[in-house]
């Protein structure tokens, strides 16, 4: 009996927290790897419409983004309030799309190039005219796989 008592008294009652930093660091590294820091500032207001039949865009490196929407307030005195196209981090015109696509393409390994997709992030209030022009230019540039970016809604069944 006395033997047991002695043992209990000697063992420290606290759980060792020495491995806690390791666990936290593991989580930290996971998040650091997963994080994709935004490489370009969004200069147009885009509130994508809602839709239910969505597919996920795989592999971010194979996607280029074309944003269409009203310029944000601080750019409005320079660029007006009509919807504009943003490619990369600056305002561009429809005619600049082929070069933009080409610039993105050279960064992608050749074998994966056929799988490049264009993600069109268009504000819901924009009229179809500018979208149509962009679509036409994409077709002319041979970029046929596109994705109309949208927010998910409940799937009505």
């Amino acid at each position, binding site marked *: 009996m006395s033997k047991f008592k002695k043992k209990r008294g*000697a063992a420290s009652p606290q759980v060792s927290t020495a491995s806690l930093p390791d666990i936290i660091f593991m989580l930290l590294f996971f998040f650091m790897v997963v994080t994709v820091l*935004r490489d370009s500032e969004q200069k147009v207001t885009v509130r994508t*419409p809602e839709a239910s039949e969505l597919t*996920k865009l795989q592999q971010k490196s194979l996607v280029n983004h074309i944003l269409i929407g009203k310029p944000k307030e601080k750019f409005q005195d320079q660029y007006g309030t009509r919807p504009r196209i943003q490619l990369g981090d600056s305002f561009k015109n429809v005619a600049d799309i082929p070069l933009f696509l080409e610039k993105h393409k050279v960064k992608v390994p050749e074998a994966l190039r056929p799988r490049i997709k264009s993600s069109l992030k268009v504000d819901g209030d924009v009229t179809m005219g500018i979208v*149509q022009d962009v679509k036409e230019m994409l077709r002319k540039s041979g970029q046929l*796989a596109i994705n109309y970016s949208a927010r998910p809604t409940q799937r009505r069944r």
Partner: protein
Amino acid sequence: MARKTSRSRMSNEVNAGSMADIAFLLLIFFLVTTTIDVDKGITVKLPPWSEDEPDITRLKKRNVFSILVNAQNQLLVRGEPMRVADLRENTKEFIANPRKMENLSEAPTKALISLKNDRGTKYSKYIEVYNEITAAYNELWDDLALKMYGVPYSDDLDVAKRKAIRDQIPKVLSEAEPTAFGEEN
């Protein structure tokens, strides 16, 4: 007594307890700054561009489901006004034609959806309509996949099975050059 001294010597190690706090701080910083925004959207394949005039192919009127969206965001489906909410059911009925109606498509393989909008149509309306058409096809594929293989249609299905389904109900959506009556913003 001897044991006590050894314990006090052990506690001379650097206290690693605060390490967790530092790591936590970093972790929370990254958690806050991270935006894991999964890009989602409706995937579309555009037709290739060609300079020459397209061949005029005569299609039977019953096989064409024409949808017009004007600059006031109103729908005209086969000459009749329609609400977007009814579009999905009507599209499904047109493609599948379960009651073998005279005025609906002869077979799903012959059905063609024609979509035409105005340059002044709102993008959100266009996506709404596009979404309904996509939904109609997805539901038809789902039904067929359940009937044939007992599982709903999804990307997890074999390529061969998916192809078999898509051969039976091909998605034929033709987008016409938009009109330019409405005002653009």
